[in-house]
């Protein structure tokens, strides 16, 4: 079974702290990895994506993510969080293996920023 796993349901940090949100996947073949953010009461918004090349990709608002094939991971990081980063973050895998095309999301990690 192909899965996307976000091990932390909630992460709490103080404003100005760095943060890492974890994502692990179990897919083979051709995949795209991406992260989305969902503020309360709103739809998901794209943050960044990775397919090939430099394993560290930059996104909007200072977010970056690093792909690791050996760890099957695509963790999201930010050096200094702002209160407006409080939201739920979803890791997603788009799988093109074997002619299929499936976009699967993890269950999300809620990032809570304390003042």
């Amino acid at each position, binding site marked *: 079974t192909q899965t996307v796993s976000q091990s932390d349901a909630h992460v709490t940090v103080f404003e100005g702290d760095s943060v890492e949100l974890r994502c692990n996947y179990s897919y083979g073949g051709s995949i795209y990895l991406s992260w*989305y953010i969902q503020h309360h009461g709103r*739809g998901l918004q*794209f943050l960044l994506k990775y397919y090939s090349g430099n394993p560290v990709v930059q996104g909007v608002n200072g977010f970056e993510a690093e792909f690791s094939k050996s760890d099957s991971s695509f963790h999201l990081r930010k050096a200094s969080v702002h209160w407006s980063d409080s939201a739920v973050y*979803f890791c997603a895998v788009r799988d093109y293996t074997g002619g299929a*095309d*499936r*976009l699967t999301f993890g269950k999300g990690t809620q990032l809570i920023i304390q003042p």
Partner: protein
Amino acid sequence: DAGVTQTPRHEVAEKGQTIILKCEPVSGHNDLFWYRQTKIQGLELLSYFRSKSLMEDGGAFKDRFKAEMLNSSFSTLKIQPTEPKDSAVYLCASSLDPLNTEVFFGKGTRLTVV
């Protein structure tokens, strides 16, 4: 340029009713997705269309859920008959093509079945 538009934003239905949710994708996008979002299950794929052709029908959701894409700029999701366990947020999303992984989401329709 308009994003993905979903209507209505809120829907309350009685058990057994038929409801139809509507979605207009981003103009020019060829891929359209319907997801159900709950706190427990997260985002579950209901349907996926590519250039109006149904590519994924969400397996377990087949019996009471039917998505259609009447033209490239309009899709509906019919739930018939509704059950209380269908209470959730239904999200519609679109992307330009299969190789473009930036997917644009609508704000969702919150469905409550009583």
